[in-house]
């Protein structure tokens, strides 16, 4: 693939009323194919993880109540385990599952991811809504301190939220 092959970009927004980090992205592929790539355990290792990660699907039971566990190994050799549970599956339109970065300090933060696929003219729009029980608290803290915030933290958080908008 050449770098110019695709001009698609993920657009991040936050919704303070639902505590969600929302990722929207178009793919130049029909919905059935996008669904297959995202849910077939054979295909998941082809894209899951950050650039340079190699992902192994350890467990993948796509039924309501079923669980999944993937391990991504970074270029530095460090393994990043992720896990979750399938809450809803409606191929090829919608899936709801929990997401957890299963390492100390992070595993208590389970987000609920709602994935929705819609097709238009042979292209597919992916809407990935990540609901954090706790993101609202962060957003609240940032929003309330933003006007006059002097602390380095608030600047960093503001910059971070700006990138999500």
């Amino acid at each position: 693939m050449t770098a110019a092959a695709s001009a698609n970009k993920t657009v991040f927004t936050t919704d303070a009323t639902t505590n969600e980090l929302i990722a929207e992205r178009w793919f130049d592929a029909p919905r059935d194919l996008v669904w297959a790539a995202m849910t077939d355990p054979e295909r998941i290792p082809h894209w899951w993880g950050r650039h340079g990660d190699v992902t192994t699907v350890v467990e993948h039971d796509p039924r309501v109540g079923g669980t999944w566990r993937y391990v991504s190994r970074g270029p530095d050799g460090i393994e990043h385990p992720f896990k979750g549970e399938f809450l809803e599956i409606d191929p090829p339109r919608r899936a709801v599952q929990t997401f957890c970065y299963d390492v100390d300090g992070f595993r208590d933060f389970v987000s609920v991811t709602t994935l929705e696929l819609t097709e238009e003219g042979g292209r597919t729009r992916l809407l990935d809504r990540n609901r954090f029980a706790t993101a609202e608290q962060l957003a609240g803290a940032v929003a309330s301190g933003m006007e006059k915030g002097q602390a380095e933290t608030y600047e960093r958080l503001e910059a971070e939220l700006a990138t999500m908008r």
Partner: protein
Amino acid sequence: MQTDPLSATFAALADPTRRAILARLATGEATVTELAAPFSMSLPGVSKHLKVLEVAGLVSKDRDAQWRRCRLEPAPLRDLATWLEFYRRFLDESFDRLDDYLNALQQPKEPTDDRSR
């Protein structure tokens, strides 16, 4: 009850009064009395909230017993920002890779037999 530092941060931020206190401290140091002023709340009530923020490491108090000024401690919030950034980057790069993968899947198959040479 107490788990990891990030959980403590989130728990401390879960209350609107405590978020308002942090927002006030983001503009500069303040005494407990000053912090209590905007709230219809007793000083002990505000002190209780401050204690939670202190335990989470979000607020520190002056040693000076006379003034007891409170200030915002940015480190725990930085951990939070780090985590969110990790998550956002993870999604972003995964979707980039998915895009590439979908494009590769849709490329016409390369002839694999000898005649292609």
